[in-house]
């Protein structure tokens, strides 16, 4: 029953084949690069953000209209988040945090539209985003602080004979950041969408299997699905916010490495 399969919504399929790397020219050899439905929705997400922000800030009135006000609120929200977590020195990373927040937020909201693909439900996408943050932290930390960045792994006030135990633990804790960052976003979105599909699937199966009784009984899973839809909107926006806040906190470590 493809209609009620809860995993089917995450299938990636090619829309257009682009080119093949390597291989001997026969069918199925080498790595084929394609424009997939996932890529399509990433492009749609970015296009929506860019078009909205360009349109909203085109007028630049002193007294903002509705669209301009929304854009300004969005800016103030992310700017306040960066300033409070990473300080004024963190504002040079504002473009990164703003892009991450709006991309995840809009992608999650797109995912809530029926028949749309949810970009953030694939761990490779969220892992790429978190590795972007992680590598930025490491690169900037070493460029700005040099070897002092390694102080991050040596907590202040720890006696020397405990350091051989504490430092590996700190290193593992640091390396676990991109994993927890990506798994949290991916897990929340994946689990939410599967639950939603399972509950609506119940209603479809009841109507198909039980007839008239099924029509009445399907009210219960439908009510649950309505409640879950609201919850999913909340989870989608909260997870975008959490991702951005944690990005700011990790960047703060790169700017001020002493614990």
């Amino acid at each position, binding site marked *: 029953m493809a209609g009620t399969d809860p995993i089917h919504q995450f299938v990636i399929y090619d829309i257009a084949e682009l080119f093949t790397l390597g291989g001997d020219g026969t069918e199925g050899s080498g790595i084929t690069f394609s424009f997939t439905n996932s890529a399509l929705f990433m492009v749609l997400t970015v296009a929506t953000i860019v078009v909205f922000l360009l349109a909203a800030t085109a007028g630049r009135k002193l007294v903002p209209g509705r669209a301009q006000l929304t854009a300004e609120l969005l800016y103030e929200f992310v700017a306040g988040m960066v300033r409070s977590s990473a300080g004024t020195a963190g504002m040079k990373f504002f473009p990164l945090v703003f892009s991450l927040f709006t991309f995840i937020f809009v992608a999650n909201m797109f995912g809530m539209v029926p028949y749309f693909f949810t970009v953030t439900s694939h761990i490779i996408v969220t892992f790429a985003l978190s590795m972007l943050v992680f590598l930025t932290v490491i690169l900037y930390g070493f460029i700005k602080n040099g070897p002092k960045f390694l102080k991050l792994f040596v907590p202040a006030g720890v006696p020397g004979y405990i350091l051989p135990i504490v430092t590996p633990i*700190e290193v*593992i804790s640091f390396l*676990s950041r991109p*994993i927890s960052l990506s*798994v949290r976003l991916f897990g*929340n979105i994946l689990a939410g969408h599967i639950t939603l599909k399972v509950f609506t699937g119940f209603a479809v199966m009841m109507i198909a299997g039980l007839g008239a009784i099924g029509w009445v009984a399907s009210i219960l899973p439908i009510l649950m699905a309505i409640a879950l839809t609201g919850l999913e909107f*909340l989870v989608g926006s909260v997870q975008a916010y959490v991702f951005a806040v944690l990005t700011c906190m990790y960047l703060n470590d790169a700017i001020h490495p002493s614990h």
Partner: protein
Amino acid sequence: MTIPPDNQGQPENARGATRDLASRIASAKREREREDNRSLRDASPEMTGLARGLRIGTEFIAAVLVGAGIGYLIDLGLGTSPWGLLILLLMGFAAGILNVIRVVAEMNAASPAPPGSDLGPDAEDEERDENR
């Protein structure tokens, strides 16, 4: 934000008026700052219990997985199986606990206990008990 009534504390000369205005601006700024702080606190990332639980859970699991992964790679490279995996798994466990402690400390800092609540005896109380 309340607007102070205009007829209140009307000064006789212009200097008084400036001083009055300055104090009113200062008080309005203070009030606004308080408002900003409050709205920042309300919008903390830990909005729901579910989000809080998932955050702690992933922080813990990720550290254990990373520790085990590094241990496995060390074993693969040096042929010390199973010691690298065992030791690094336990290290990952410790790092997971460290992550959880950090997250919870940060959550506690974000939402301090309401004033007047009983937080148990602190260091000063203990000292007083000993001196008695």
